[in-house]
């Protein structure tokens, strides 16, 4: 029978075939291993059996299957995709209106949030209907509602309406309930994929693309506002959304990649989630508390990403993540007036921004490290003359 080491070899083969859709990859792994096992039971050695199985696979076969499979699944979620594209288009348009002081910017931004809400709702409802048999539907609903309340809170802030803080409080409660539920569910049913992580693996690539657009828009507005001396409000709202989007994406990646293998790491992911979501309540929590929470998040998430990614770029990751933590501590001490230095100085921030850009190239092929870095860069851009 094949040993764990043998399975590792087949897994590496699948990685080299360019399979990125996790559920399909896991299924093909089981298929290939079962085939190899059958041949080994007929007396072949692992090497011979594995070579026989490999020889029967036409070149680029798995990539084609993945493409066909994704097309099949995607047709069901077309509405969700249309609205997520609409959200990005309106977001950019609304930001441009706001920047050029044109009328209607606020309404466009609100409609863009509405489009995102419809996209999230239709995607998750389709997911719930199609995957009725999967565990954790309630945690999916809780997570989606949490994000919707978060959007509502920021809409209210844009419109200066009362109730923004209450919406944010409900959002944090729902997001924490969702994370707690997933954590307990994974602890109870180790290896059994929850609906939330299953659906996330289908959407992860599109979410990553949306995050990069949000980061670009946010950073562009910070730069333009700095040059023209405009207010930073639009850029800051965009970057806050980006940070929470990237944070949730990172948490779900972590739940998927490590939580099934290590009980200790599940708790660390849950602590990360608490440290990510609590600072949303900036109107209740003093800066010092938010600083400590963010620091714990950076440290824990960095450690978990480093552990889970097992990439050749691990040393670079530690170096850049360490640099970010030093920068963040420095910025926070300045903000708390412990340090007298001026970290808002362009002469300081331009070289730092260049250093912070390098990891995008280095980590471009590692989704975990890339997501962590999108979040870090978003936070760095937000810290620069933060208006909210």
């Amino acid at each position, binding site marked *: 029978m094949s040993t*764990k080491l043998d*399975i590792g070899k087949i897994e590496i083969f699948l990685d080299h075939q360019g399979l990125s859709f996790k*559920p*399909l990859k*896991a*299924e*093909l*792994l*089981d*298929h290939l*291993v*079962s*085939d190899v096992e*059958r041949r080994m039971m007929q007396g072949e050695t692992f090497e011979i059996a594995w070579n026989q199985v490999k020889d029967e*696979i036409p070149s680029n*076969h*798995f990539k*084609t*299957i993945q493409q*066909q*499979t994704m097309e*099949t*699944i995607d*047709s*069901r979620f077309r509405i969700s995709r249309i609205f997520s594209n609409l959200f990005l288009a309106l977001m950019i348009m609304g930001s441009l209106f706001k920047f050029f002081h044109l009328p209607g910017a606020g309404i466009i931004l609100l409609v863009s949030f509405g489009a995102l809400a419809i996209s999230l709702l239709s995607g998750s409802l389709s997911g719930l*209907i*199609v*995957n*009725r*048999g*999967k565990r954790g539907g309630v945690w999916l609903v809780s997570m989606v509602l949490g994000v919707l309340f978060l959007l509502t809170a920021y809409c209210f802030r844009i419109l200066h309406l009362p109730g923004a803080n209450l919406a944010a409080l409900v959002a944090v409660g729902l997001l924490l309930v969702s994370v707690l539920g997933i954590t307990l569910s994974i602890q109870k049913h*180790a*290896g*059994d*994929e929850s609906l939330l992580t299953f659906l996330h693996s289908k959407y992860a690539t599109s979410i990553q693309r949306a995050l990069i657009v949000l980061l670009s828009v946010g950073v562009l507005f910070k730069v333009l506002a700095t040059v023209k001396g405009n207010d930073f409000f639009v850029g800051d709202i965009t970057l806050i959304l980006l940070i929470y989007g990237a944070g949730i994406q990172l948490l779900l990646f972590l739940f998927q990649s490590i939580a099934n293998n290590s009980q200790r790491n599940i708790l660390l992911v849950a602590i990360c989630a608490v440290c990510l979501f609590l600072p949303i309540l900036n109107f209740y929590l003093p800066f010092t508390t938010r600083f400590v929470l963010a620091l714990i998040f950076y440290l824990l998430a960095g450690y978990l990403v480093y552990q889970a990614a097992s990439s050749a770029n691990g040393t670079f990751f530690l170096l850049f993540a360490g640099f970010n933590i030093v920068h963040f501590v420095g910025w926070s001490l300045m903000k708390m007036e412990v340090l007298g230095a001026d970290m808002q100085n362009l002469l300081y921030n331009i070289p730092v921004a260049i250093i912070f850009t390098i990891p995008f190239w280095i980590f471009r092929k590692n989704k975990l490290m890339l997501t962590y870095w999108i979040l870090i860069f978003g936070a760095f851009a937000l810290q620069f003359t933060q208006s909210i």
Partner: protein
Amino acid sequence: MSSKEFIRGTLKTIILKLLAENKQLYGYEISQRVAELSGEEIQLTYGALYPVLYKLESEGLLVTNSEIVDNRVRKYYSLTKKGHELAKEKVSELQKFTEILKNILAPIPQPKMNLSGL
């Protein structure tokens, strides 16, 4: 013998039929059952099997259930109520169609020519 076109047109029905007769099956098991029942004449490729399974799942005809087996995830497929109904319908349609085909493909008896009048 087995042409890819024939398999492509009937694979959905074959999978539904196998799952209707079994509580649950995983991908490799389905391909082995098909090979076994066809006397090794039909060997399902990964490319033929998995996109169809995902399509059936997205249409609400199958549900899945994952289990850890020997350190790897095994995904089992089973029919939903709608899947059971469609399996019956599709199998009966295909049986009818093969009967029709049989009739079409059976050699047509040639009418005897009467040469006596010549």
